[in-house]
């Protein structure tokens, strides 16, 4: 075989491997769409999206997905109340206050926090945080949205802090120095110059954090319960979209039944929500990269 032919073959094969990522996306959409389509032939899409009762595994089957969505939003909101302010403050500290030595030690530790398997956080939420909270809040149920929400916030906080800090580090020194020259303190510089200048990068980090929270599975599957319930009460058992998929996967639901298809319909909804958020986040990050180059 001539060298030129070999070069040609190699390049085509490398290209195919790169294309695999596009095929993965296509595969995800294909698999989800196929089963969702079958599902929607039996359940009208309007009933699915606006129904307030989700009981596909009971004899009186209802396919209203709202309780799962509300459960997901509830837990994610609690997680964001923890992760966004804590992550942003930690990023401000690391970017504007911390000496180099501290930063070198703290950043790998934050990476550890982000790298702990989620099943471990689930254990922590169920066996440590919930009993601890119950001492202060006696009405708190053993399964609830509050405890997994708080723990999920802790898990996502390093993501927010690391991406926000990257955005702040990209703000040119000159802007800070200009601010200091006008007599501003570090706090004034951080809040009025650096954070606004890094705004789109920080927003991108926040959106990615929301997407991560919506898709997080094991913490809620372990500690939030399995009771789809249309409620904003964080003290009672609920069920999220992801936890429902786990619940059905653990059972022995036969393939081809409508119960089996529900997990793909719920998965499709989850995919669309997170994919939309990811696209917005990528777009924002691209924009902020261009700002100072």
């Amino acid at each position, binding site marked *: 075989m001539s060298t030129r032919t070999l*070069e040609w073959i190699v390049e085509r094969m490398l290209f195919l*491997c*790169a294309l695999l990522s596009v095929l*993965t996306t296509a595969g995800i959409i294909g698999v989800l769409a196929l089963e969702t389509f079958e599902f929607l032939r039996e359940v009208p899409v309007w009933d699915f999206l606006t129904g307030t009762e989700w009981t596909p595994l009971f004899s009186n089957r209802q396919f209203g997905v709202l309780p799962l969505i509300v459960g997901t939003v509830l837990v994610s909101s609690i997680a964001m109340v923890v992760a966004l302010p804590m992550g942003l403050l*930690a990023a401000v*500290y690391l970017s504007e206050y911390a000496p180099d030595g501290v930063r070198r030690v703290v950043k790998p530790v934050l990476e550890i926090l982000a790298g702990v398997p989620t*099943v*471990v956080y689930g254990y922590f939420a169920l066996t440590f945080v919930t009993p601890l909270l119950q001492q202060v809040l006696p009405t708190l149920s053993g399964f609830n949205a509050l405890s997994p929400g708080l723990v999920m916030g802790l898990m996502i906080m390093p993501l927010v802090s690391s991406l926000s800090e990257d955005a702040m580090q990209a703000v040119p020194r000159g802007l800070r120095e200009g601010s200091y020259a006008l007599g501003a303190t570090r706090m*004034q510089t951080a809040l009025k110059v650096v954070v606004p200048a890094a705004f789109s990068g920080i927003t991108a980090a926040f959106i990615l954090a929301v997407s991560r929270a919506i898709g997080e599975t094991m913490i809620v599957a372990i500690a939030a319960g399995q009771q789809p319930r249309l409620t904003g009460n964080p003290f009672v058992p609920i069920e999220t979209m992801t936890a429902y998929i786990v619940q059905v*996967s653990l059972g022995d639901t036969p393939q081809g039944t409508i119960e089996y298809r529900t997990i793909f319909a719920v998965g499709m909804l989850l995919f669309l929500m997170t994919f939309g958020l990811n696209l917005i986040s990528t777009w924002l990050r691209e924009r902020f990269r261009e700002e100072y180059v």
Partner: protein
Amino acid sequence: MRKQADLLFHAVSLAALVIALVALAVLVFDIVADGGSRLSWQFLTNIASRHPEEAGVYHALMGSIWVILLTGALALPIGVAAAVYLEEYGTRSRLARFIELNIANLAAVPSIIYGLLGLGLFVRFLGMGQSVMAGASTLALLALPVVILSTREALRTVPSTIREGSYALGATKWQTIWNQVLPMALPGILTGLILSLSRAIGETAPLIAIGALTYIPFAPDGIWSKFTVLPIQIFNWVSRPQPEFKVNAAAGILVLLVLLVSMNAVAIVVRDRFQRRGRA
């Protein structure tokens, strides 16, 4: 007044960081306190059992090792090939740009969605069943974006003079990449691979979605064997009401964390060697 506000803000932002670090310490301490006493040689060599005090993690540990080795074997060649294409061949094309954007988005797709893909594609359509192969294929797709991104970074650290020197000696593009660029980038590539595998080994949700069973009282004996993994075994124990099983879960978590820490240690050693060689 301004100075005091600054001091207060300094303290508050530092507090955010300290709270996170303390929480991590509490988490580790809690798990050691719960499961430390349960760890023993017997726990590592026994298989799942209905009696909590006789149960062990041997089958799950072996399952995790099988799955993760196969995941690495699948993700490494494909990921490196994709990264080489994007970094060395197609950097300027529109299509390459689209593929890049796609990889960035895939990296943020929830892992349980990959599980549904694996269920539809590998388990059902390709007929792999709930085998080690189906699990590893699913995790390989999940790990690919990270492997590709870290390989590209490693390729970027190879100076362009190396490539030019190779071309000057008459080597073709592929000869240059295979003989010069890839060997130089190898430690960086391996570090990225190990880190992405250490994330994959803790994954629970996608393997539950493809139907990896929670009660498999044997270690896999091949890639077509049924399997369970450590995180699923931990999840199974956490979900049981008896407190004795919770103790087992904590001990299982310790085994998982030791595995994770060793993988990260290997990655750090590889990276250090690379940096030292770069300086020489």
